[in-house]
């Protein structure tokens, strides 16, 4: 839920920045047209009508404004184009500075006025550019980047298992079973009727352990839990068991959320989930299905350790394991 709210806020902010970018674009267009169509008027207002160099410079600046305008009005990437405006502002301010130094009286006053206006515009440009860049970074690859810098992540997955809801529920409710199909778990131990102690396996970050409690459950229908106390990766989950059409199978719907911290643990978690975090949960459910329907997680020569399959690519060749490989086990 928190992640959803964050995403919506990011989208709103992004839309706001886009709007401002477009407004700057229209302003560039106006300035550019004025500088090209009536350069002398612009030169007079700016107080540089005494310089012959300005006769060349003003239309050139006008042409540059048109480039900003085209970029800001047509491209979705307002960030980059706002930065070009910031650079333009810097050029303008530099030339205005030179112009002020060489003039006095009425012209100097006009130049100072124009410079003040441009400083104001520069502030708006800079603000837009910085925000556009930041919004872009947040909204691209939300999960992974969010994880690396810490943040919350919500994953959902679903599968259909050819067993009645009560049986699937009972397997899940026996929390000791979770590590057989959930790849990131080493051990789950019930410590009370509704409380348990969980530990994660090495790839999820070494020595990550936490306590959890069931906060809501209905026999054969759903289980909801969350970590308690000072968990390194605060997390919560809900699983619902829904009879599938036909009355033979059960649809399993899972939602998991993680509050991933920054730092080493956050990095390990990000590495574990990789580019497509939901796939880890998909694979967890595939193994749950295998365990319930066939009695065991299925192993092949290429993926002999079952639940580690995805992390092994490229896999070991599809040929039998040697005795030593087999006795060393998955950590070899």
């Amino acid at each position, binding site marked *: 839920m928190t992640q959803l709210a964050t995403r919506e806020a990011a989208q709103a902010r992004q839309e706001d920045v886009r709007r401002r970018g477009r407004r700057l674009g229209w302003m560039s267009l106006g300035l550019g047209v004025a500088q090209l169509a009536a350069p002398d008027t612009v030169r007079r207002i700016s107080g540089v009508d005494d310089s012959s160099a300005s006769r060349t410079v003003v239309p050139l600046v006008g042409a540059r404004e048109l480039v900003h305008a085209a970029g800001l009005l047509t491209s979705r990437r307002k960030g980059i184009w706002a930065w070009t405006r910031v650079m333009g502002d810097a050029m303008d301010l530099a030339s205005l500075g030179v112009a002020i130094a060489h003039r006095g009286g009425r012209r100097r006053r006009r130049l100072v006025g124009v410079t003040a206006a441009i400083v104001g515009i520069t502030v708006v440009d800079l603000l837009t550019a910085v925000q556009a860049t930041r919004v872009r970074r947040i909204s691209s690859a939300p999960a992974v980047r969010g994880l690396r810098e810490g943040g919350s992540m919500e994953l959902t997955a679903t599968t*259909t298992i*050819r067993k009645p809801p009560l049986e699937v529920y009972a397997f899940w409710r026996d929390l000791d079973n979770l590590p057989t199909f959930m790849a990131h778990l080493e051990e789950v131990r019930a410590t009370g009727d509704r409380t348990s102690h969980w530990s994660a396996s090495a790839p999820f970050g070494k020595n990550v352990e936490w306590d959890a409690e069931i906060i809501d459950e209905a026999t054969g229908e759903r289980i909801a839990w969350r970590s308690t106390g000072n968990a390194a990766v605060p997390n919560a989950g809900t699983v619902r068991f829904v009879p599938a059409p036909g009355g033979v*199978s059960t649809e399993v719907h899972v939602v998991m959320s993680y509050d991933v911290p920054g730092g080493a643990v956050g990095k390990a978690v990000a590495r574990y989930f990789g580019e497509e975090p939901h*796939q880890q949960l*998909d*694979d967890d459910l*595939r193994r749950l*299905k*295998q365990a319930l*329907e*066939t*009695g*065991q997680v*299925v*192993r*092949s*020569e*290429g*993926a*002999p350790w*079952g639940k580690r*399959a*995805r992390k092994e*690519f*490229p*896999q070991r*060749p*599809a*040929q*039998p*394991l*040697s*005795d030593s*490989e*087999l006795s060393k086990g998955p950590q070899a």
Partner: protein
Amino acid sequence: MRANTWAGRNKVKVRDVPDPKILNDRDAIVRITSTAICGSDLHLLDGYVPTMQDGDIMGHEFMGEVVEVGRGVDPDRVRVGDRIVVPFPIACGACGACAAKLYSCCENSNPNAGIAEKMFGHPVAGIFGYSHLTGGFAGGQAQYARVPFADVGPLKIEPDLTDEQVLFLSDILPTGYMGAEMCDIQPSDVVAVWGAGPVGQFAMDSARVLGAAKVIAIDKEPYRLQMAERAGHTPVNFEEVDVRSRLLELTGGRGPDKCIDAVGMEASHGSAHVHAYDRIKQAVRSETERPHALRQAILSCRSGGIVSVIGVYGGFLDKFPAGAWMNRALTLRTGQCHVQRYMKPLLQRIERGEIDPTRVITHTLPLDQAERGFEIFKNKQDNCEKVVLKP
């Protein structure tokens, strides 16, 4: 043990590898007595099926004697000492797909379902010796193999039948049969089969057994066409005649009622420039298939007919004749064979002498000569139709 392994594109190598071990409780270990090279192994050989790795044991057509069973194997189904034929798709027998008898789409037997799902939208079953996309299972071109779900798929064979009579129940006979069965054959039907390789030959035999009025064999290798002709089918050589006009001639202008594509992704084409077009696109991997046979089958089939596809496709193809398919009310049916469905009924047909699977065997080699077997089979040397390997 010795095993034939993939050693990079267009290279296989017989090597020493560890003996197989039980990994799951319902596994059995089989000492292989006969195994074969399949046409679809050629798609692995030249690297068109992705996710092959150096050292992968190949082979998905094999049979032998059970020498060890896991503690979860149902003793009423299989025991040590049994002689069994192993179906190439690995199926759990308990998921929704297996319950619907769609064994080659088993939802549980592929530990690499995630990759298969990316490629195909939904995962497919595990297959012995057929890339990591279908699970990374060691194959059967070896002295021994591990057989998962040993109490689900394998078929027990009595000693009165030879290996050669029953070995092809593992794949090509049921595959050919399913190709014909999907055609829903009526007594008045003319059935055209593209490809006179072993699967094509069995599709032709099956079409006849299922009551087709006439069966046409389309290929370019004279020896394969002769083999089909000797079995009573009508040969059409696409390098000598225009297939469409010849088919119209043979069917009084109607076109074949049912068409079977037993060729798949690496077809040849009579027209050099069409062949070159697809060959280049395939070589640069901008399409994975060379679908001439499929295109021609769709264009040739009579309106309202059925096009049944048992040749293997792996990815994406161009220039699919969707207009002909849609406007002429064609039905396209396909699938990797659900072998488990057909083994028993086909064994009975073999016992009754209705189908003789041994007629396609042209070469029997020791396992150590697998490399040579692949070479002559791929290049169609020495009139090679089907190679059986003896470990």
